[in-house]
């Protein structure tokens, strides 16, 4: 499941923030902020994507780099949220 989430997150980032430029995709654990891929506007776009695509609620306290600053972190965050919903 995590792999599927990871692919979807990566695709979203490529299409939305990299405009299809696959050559600029960072490594899964690389910082999206440090690599100039997301800014304050993009974070909000990312939250909307997570909520709508995965049908989960992202609370204010969740919107932190520890959850959203790399493909790996975003994927892990979505998975943990989804698990919490399922439970």
């Amino acid at each position, binding site marked *: 499941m995590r792999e599927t989430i990871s692919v979807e997150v990566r695709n979203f980032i490529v299409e939305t923030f990299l405009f299809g430029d696959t050559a600029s995709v960072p490594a899964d654990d690389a910082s999206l902020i440090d690599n*100039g891929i997301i800014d*304050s506007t993009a974070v909000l776009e990312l939250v909307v994507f997570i909520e709508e695509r995965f049908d989960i609620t992202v609370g204010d306290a969740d919107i932190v780099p520890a959850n959203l*600053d790399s493909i790996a972190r975003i994927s892990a965050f979505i998975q943990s949220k989804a698990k919490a919903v399922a439970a």
Partner: protein
Amino acid sequence: MFLSRPYATLVHKRAGFTRVCGFAGYFGSVGDADALLRRMVGEIVHRGPDEQGRFVSTQAGLAHARLSIVGLGDGQQPMVDETGHLTIAFNGEIFNYVELRDDLRARGRRFRTSSDTEVILHLYDEMGDACLSLLNGDFAFALWDERRHRMMLARDRMGVRPLFYTSKGGTLYFASEIKALLKVPGISATLDPIALDQIFTLWAPIAPRTAFAGIHELEPASVMIAEPGRTGLKHYWQLDYPPGDAPGNIKQEAEAAEELRALLSDAVRLRMRADVPVGSYLSGGLDSSLVSALAAGMAPEGLKTFSVSFDSPEHDESAYQRQMAAALHSDHRTVVCREGDIACVFPEVIRFTERPIIRTAPAPLYNLSGLVRETGVKAVLTGEGADEVFAGYDLFKEARVRRFCARQPASRIRPHLFRKLYPYLPNLRQQSVEFLAAFFGVGDGFADDPLFSHRPRFKATAGAKLFYSRELREQLKGYDAADDLASRLPATFRTWHPLHQAQYLEARFLLPGYILSSQGDRMAMAHGIEGRFPFLDHRVVEFASRLPPEMKLKGLTEKHILRRAAQDLLPPAILERPKQPYQAPDSLAFTGPGDLDYVNDCLGEKSIAAGGLFNGEAVAKLHQKCRARATTGFRDNAAFVGILSTQLWHRAFAGQDQQIEKAA
């Protein structure tokens, strides 16, 4: 009022001319010189449509385009001195020419005209290149010394008036705008990829580089001496600050505010010298309001003020503009920037900026100078320069907060200050403390980085390079525009206070490279309007640079000393309002009603492929996002405007389409 020499010795006289103009010329040998000069100056006739003059000698030629307001027979250019050995083509104003002329007369010099241009000829004859240090003004000129076989090119201290040059076949060519140089046989427009990368990082090329490969800009405060077989270049003035650990300026704040008020009054008074009324731009902010208030007190016939307003509330300041105009009883005119207006003039704007830009902010100013032109006013005062000289930009506060946060990177309280800095950025206000700290690079440990203050801006702008083509990336491999900038800083830079370092970066690079050029001279001169900048009077600049940093940025209050100097001149609502940066809609400006054929053409697959600079697929997606009005982030906006303006630059100058039609 405290008024120290030499200000006190200045004599009040209303005389002189407003000379909105441009010039071109060469040093070396050319075939059919007169025809070439005619073609060159014909390209910049908007700077001076009333009269043209040309001068040709065996080794040099000068051409001049002049807008004559009065005195048709008194100040024609190129001007030859009475000996016949010195000839000058001059653009701009020497504001203290009355005092200089009085001194020269006292030394026995005779004048044939009442113009400031002749003052330069006499001063050069007496002092040579050293005469530049006496000039208080905004100027660029070419002076041909027939006896010494030397051409002198010079430019004002802060870079208000432009001057470009190139060489071909051993001949030096120069002009007020680059388009004139493109009339020289063998000189053509090729985009310099390094300059493009500098624009996509720093917002402007680093002078002497321009967007045109092989064509250079004479740096502000510098002089070029061209003689047979050699060319020398030197700065005659430097923007300088005291060492950071030096004791603060001995002045008390009250005394400093009083002296500043006197200096500014004198700077405005000198810039009101003209034989036609001088108007004033009024943004509604502190700087232009103060300049307008000082000017209104010196205009017994009343002051004309001019503003841009927007139909987008987040950009509009018209309520403050009306309030200030009412307080001044000025004859106030406004040009309204409505949806679609920017897109309508943008191709023309790029034809005048002569470089790609990443913001649309110059476009409304192009329309504003058009409005001024319609009223018959030929010169306007503006508040430009105050943010650089007195630390007004948010960036200065941001750097202070970043340093404050960096001392305790784990703090969850300190990053809240970033929200206070940018109340007009709603997306930032919604961010968590952790994201705020991450966006502003807190904890990166670069506090001793000379570009510390500007790193977040450079990084955010450089995000637009995502759209570079593979070929362009290859070409630029190993080049870093920010490192390039850092390598050009003076040796004393590291000794300055961090605020002064940040101010230097703004005043020395972005001010001449973007604010005074793309937003300033080029937009005003497109309609034959001359901008005058009291805050950039070198006496004001030198005074401000010596002030202790805390008199400029007090806590997180910008331009503190300026507010104090303006205290009794402005309504409290203007005096106390926080700075609102001048901005215009960027990508949204191109999404309104109407078919913007030129945008579709420029960003279409064929044009992008022909330019070879950008990734066509990515640009198509960006354009699509823009059409959906979803391009709201800084990077995407910068990329959209940067790519579109680069494509327009190609069309205007690089032969794809010399004549860009205005969009319907």
